[in-house]
Each structure stands twice: as structure tokens, then as C-alpha cells.
């Protein structure tokens, strides 16, 4: 009997220590995150007026803010759809680009350290002001790849290469317009994609290195070609990390999208806090929905080694 009590007290003791370790974070989470989320929802359903002495009063307004955002506001719907659209284009491109680059960088070659350092530079220089200046410099350097497709057409026109010609050629081949548009979009945002895939490349490199070498040996002995090895060994083994990367990409691309800027402006320039909360919440909900759908879709096809 006594022995049992002693054992019980040990587990309790362990769990109390565990709570002590996560205590600072737990307090912070409840204080800042949980409470703030609740307040955001509250704000979105009411008209908020800031009192002169500090503090605020809330008048319950029902769905008024939501109706305003979707029916009356001039640009919210448009900005939201472009942001989501850009994200949907970017995510698969970034994922596959970074997987491809990780495979290239994972092999040993001269100057690997240097190339890796360069590839990770955009993560280090991701400050808003620096990014703006870089965009400017990119468009200024006429030899470089400019970010807007209009400028791309302009830049290539001088070299005797006509983008229009290729577009027409592909259209004549019977490719659907949507696919041509997607390819055009992908080409014109190459520099954005490269700059946004630093962390993803690193995650994939780490994933590639965690694949047991024995699997490759087996594949080699069984006579698999490089192509088969990729699809039967490498790809299934990095599959679980594709989810990590997709989540990271979606969150990252939404964190500095135009919707955030619009919500920020609505709150702090126009002082319309309720509307701003609606914008944030709607965009968050859409992000979460996309994340859940994408993760489900990938998870079904994912193979877990362990």
C-alpha cells in the first residue's frame, strides 16, 4: 500500500515538474494568444470606440462588420482573392523548387558551402525595408530578372525574343489558357520563389540526410535507375516533410500578404477596429481551411517510415 502511494506521488511530482517547465509559455499563451483570439472575435461582432482616457467601449453590432467587408468595402474582396490566388500558385512551386534544389545541394561538390550560404541569404535579409530596396534594385538592373511580367516582356523585346510569340505558339499547340497563364505567372515570379524558399531548402536537405543509406544500396543492388530510385525511395521518404514545408510556406506567404497590410491600415489609419478584426479573422479562417484541406490531401498519400 505504502509502495503504491510512493509511486503515485512520483508520477505526480514528475507532472508538476513538467508543468513548471512549460509554465512561462502556458501563462503567455493564455494571456496573449487565447485571450487575444477571443477578443478578436468579440471585436469583429461589435463597433469599437476608443475612449479619450484610454480603454474602449464595445457596442454589439451583429454581423454588420462582416456584411460591410464583403458588400460595401471597395477593395477587401479583391485583395483577399489575389492574396489567396498568389498563395495557391506559390505553394506548389516553392515546394517543388526547394525539393529540387535540396537534391542538388545535398550532393558533394566544390564550393557547396558557398552555394548553400548564398541560398540561405534571403532568409537572413528578410526585413521589409531591405526587401523593398532589393526589389527596386532588381528592376533597376536591366540585365537581371525583373519581378513583373510586363517588365519581363519589355526586357526581352529588345533581345529579339518575343514572349507574345511563344504564348501564341503554346496556344496554337492547344494548351489550355489557364496552364499558359500559370506558366507565365511562375516564370515572372521566379525571383520571388527563389527568395521565399530558403528555409524549405534547409528542411528538405535535413530530410534527405535522414534517409538511411541502406535503402539506396538496396535500390542499387536491385538494379533501379536513378529515376526509379527518386520516385520509389527519395520521394516517399521526404513526403512527411512536404507537409511541414507546405505549412511553413502557407503561413509565411500569408504573414506578409496585402491582406495584412490592409487590416493594419484599416485599424491604425482609419481607426475602424471592428472591420480590421473581420479582415484578419476571415483571412485566418481561409488560411486554416486551406491548410487543413492541403494537409489532408497530402497525408492520405504520405508514407510513414516509422
Amino acid at each position, binding site marked *: 500500500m505504502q509502495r503504491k502511494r510512493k509511486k503515485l506521488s512520483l508520477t505526480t511530482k514528475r507532472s508538476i515538474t513538467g508543468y*513548471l517547465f512549460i509554465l512561462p509559455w502556458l501563462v503567455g499563451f493564455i494571456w496573449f494568444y487565447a485571450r487575444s483570439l477571443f477578443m478578436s472575435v468579440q471585436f469583429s461582432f461589435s463597433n469599437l470606440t476608443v475612449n479619450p482616457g484610454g480603454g474602449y467601449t464595445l457596442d454589439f453590432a451583429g454581423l454588420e462588420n462582416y456584411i460591410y467587408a464583403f458588400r460595401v468595402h471597395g477593395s477587401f474582396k479583391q485583395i483577399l482573392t489575389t492574396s489567396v490566388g498568389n498563395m495557391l500558385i506559390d505553394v506548389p512551386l516553392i515546394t517543388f523548387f526547394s525539393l529540387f534544389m535540396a537534391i542538388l545541394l545535398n550532393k558533394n561538390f566544390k564550393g557547396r558551402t558557398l552555394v548553400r550560404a548564398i541560398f540561405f541569404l534571403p532568409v537572413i535579409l528578410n526585413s521589409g525595408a531591405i526587401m523593398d530596396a532589393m526589389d527596386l534594385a532588381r528592376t533597376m538592373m536591366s540585365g537581371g530578372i525583373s519581378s513583373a511580367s510586363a517588365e519581363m516582356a519589355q526586357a526581352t523585346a529588345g533581345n529579339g525574343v518575343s514572349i507574345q510569340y511563344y504564348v501564341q505558339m503554346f496556344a496554337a499547340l492547344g494548351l489550355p489558357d489557364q496552364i499558359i497563364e500559370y506558366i507565365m505567372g511562375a516564370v515572372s515570379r521566379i525571383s520571388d520563389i527563389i527568395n521565399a524558399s530558403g528555409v524549405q531548402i534547409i528542411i528538405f536537405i535535413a530530410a534527405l540526410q535522414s534517409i538511411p543509406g541502406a535503402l539506396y544500396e538496396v535500390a542499387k543492388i536491385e538494379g533501379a535507375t536513378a529515376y526509379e530510385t527518386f520516385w520509389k525511395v527519395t520521394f516517399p521518404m521526404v513526403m512527411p516533410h512536404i507537409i511541414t514545408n507546405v505549412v511553413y510556406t502557407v503561413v509565411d506567404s500569408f504573414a506578409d500578404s496585402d491582406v495584412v497590410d490592409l487590416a493594419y491600415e484599416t485599424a491604425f489609419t482609419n481607426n475602424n477596429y471592428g472591420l480590421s478584426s473581420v479582415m484578419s479573422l476571415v483571412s485566418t479562417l481561409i488560411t486554416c481551411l486551406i491548410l487543413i484541406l492541403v494537409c489532408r490531401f497530402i497525408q492520405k498519400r504520405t508514407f510513414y517510415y516509422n
Partner: protein
Amino acid sequence: MTIKETWQNIKSDTQFANDRKRWIANIKKVILGLFKAVILIGISYVILGPVIGIISSSFFSDADNYNTMVYLIPQEPTLDRYKLAIQYMNYGKTVSASLLYSLTLMILQVFVCSMAGYGFARYQFPFKNVLFACVVIMIVIPTHTIMLPLYMTFAKFDVFGIIKLFRGSAVNLLSTPVPMYIMTLFGCGLRSGLYIYIFNQFFRGLPKEIEEAAFVDGAGTWYTYFRIMLVNAIPSVITVAIFSMVWQYNDTFYAKLFLISDDIVISKKISTLQATISNVEKIYDPKIQELYLDAGVVLVMIPVIIIYIALQKYFIEGVERSGIVG
């Protein structure tokens, strides 16, 4: 004789089969290597291009700027841009304040997040899965969803009415860096969720025997954590330290939200540099203004680049070994 027949002859000729195979393999290797080099150099150029552009144009004099023949290498290089940029940004003071600010936050991040990560990795307690789901929620939910309540919270900051009891009213912590310190101290700083996740993955990968040995030798829980586990977790500590330092240094979102003075946050100061110089120095040509901005950007980048180059090796290897991947 057709080409096909010649090819058949060569193929069926067994005398130099090995040499031929080696030769073909070598050619394949060279072509693939060339292809790889082209891709890597091209992409490196896309990344480095704008950086080179900024650096070179920060040395341009007015004459170089108007001379269309000048490309990348200025004819009459000048340091004027840097002189004015340093003067108007108050560079020495701002950069040291900014580095101190991000360094302090980095130390807080490392301690708080590693503690939380360790707690989740090694201890069993009720609601553990629910709580870890909260960490994932923290990573997934964009910060802008909660920016308004945070702003409100720190505009009238109070803990259960205690501060009101002493000072008579709640304090306004905006326009000071205190909100950032408080949030980081409670594990909700810039991307803290991600750091907790990294630490959790890493601690889970460490063998349990290390701790058991420490316990058997009579080390207490906290001694084990600080003196043994944290030391073993150096790769992930370095990863998180550099991530949090650099991202904090670059962060403008929280700095803007909490109205933190731009004397502390240099990446916020750079956004007003162009306007300041054009107003005070009466420079109206936007192209010339941009040259000053370029010089400012180079100045802001220098500390980050130095940190990055110094720790680059540990960093990338650290990320690889630190178990972001799990």
C-alpha cells in the same frame, strides 16, 4: 553502311567495351555537371544580383547616376552617401541599441522556448497533447489576427489590477520595448512557437540515459536541465539563437505595432531615411534619394551579414542536426 549498322558494329565489338563505357559515362558526368553548374550559378545570381546592385549604387556619385554608360562600376566613386546615411540614422548608437535589443530577446527566447520544449519532450502530464496542439496553433495562426487585442492590452497594461493598486491607473507600455520583452519572457515572442517546436524535436531525439545517469549521480531536475541537457542541445541552441537574433533585428511588424522607437529598431529607421534626407538636404530627384537609401540598407545589412558569415557553418549544420525535421 547506315548509321544504325555502324552503331550495331561498335556495340557488338567487345574489344574496347570497357573503355567505351567509361568514356560515355565521363561525358554524361561532364554534361550533368555543367547543367548543374549553370542552374546553381543562375539562381545564385538571382539572389545576389540585387545585393550587388545595392552595394555598387551606394558608391555612385551624382554624375555616375545620370551617366547611362555607367553600369555597376562607378567612374567617380564617392562615400558621400554613407556619410549622410550614418549621420541621419545616427548609425553607431542605433545599431548598437538595436543589436542589444535583439540580443536580450534572443537570450530570453532560448531559455523560455528550450524550457517549454524540454517540458513537452520529457515529462508526462495531463492535457499534454492538447497543450502541444496549442503550440502548433501558435505557429499556424498569423500574428496579425491578434494584433489589435495585443495593442489594446499593452495600451492599458495591468495584471489583475495590481498595477492600478499601486499607481492609481494602468500603465501605457506602448512606444517602449517593454511589451516585446514581456511577450518573449512568456514564450509568445516573434515566432516562439517555431522555436519551441524545434527544441521539442531535438530533446526527443536525445537519449534518455544521459538524464538517468545525471539523476543517479544526484543531480536535481534544474541542474540536469541547465548543466547537462542544454549543453547537449548546443546545435539547436545555435539554430534558434541565430534565427531569433536575425529575425528580431529585421522585424518591423512588432516594432510598428508597439510603436517602438526607431532609435532601438534600426530596420524601422531605414524606412524613414529617404524622406528625412530629401527633406533636410533638399534633394528632390528620387533617383538620387535612392542612392542614399541604398547606402542605408548596406549599413543595416552589415551586422547581420557579419553574424551570418561568422556562424554560417554552425548554422546550416545546426539546422540540419537540430531536428527541425523530427
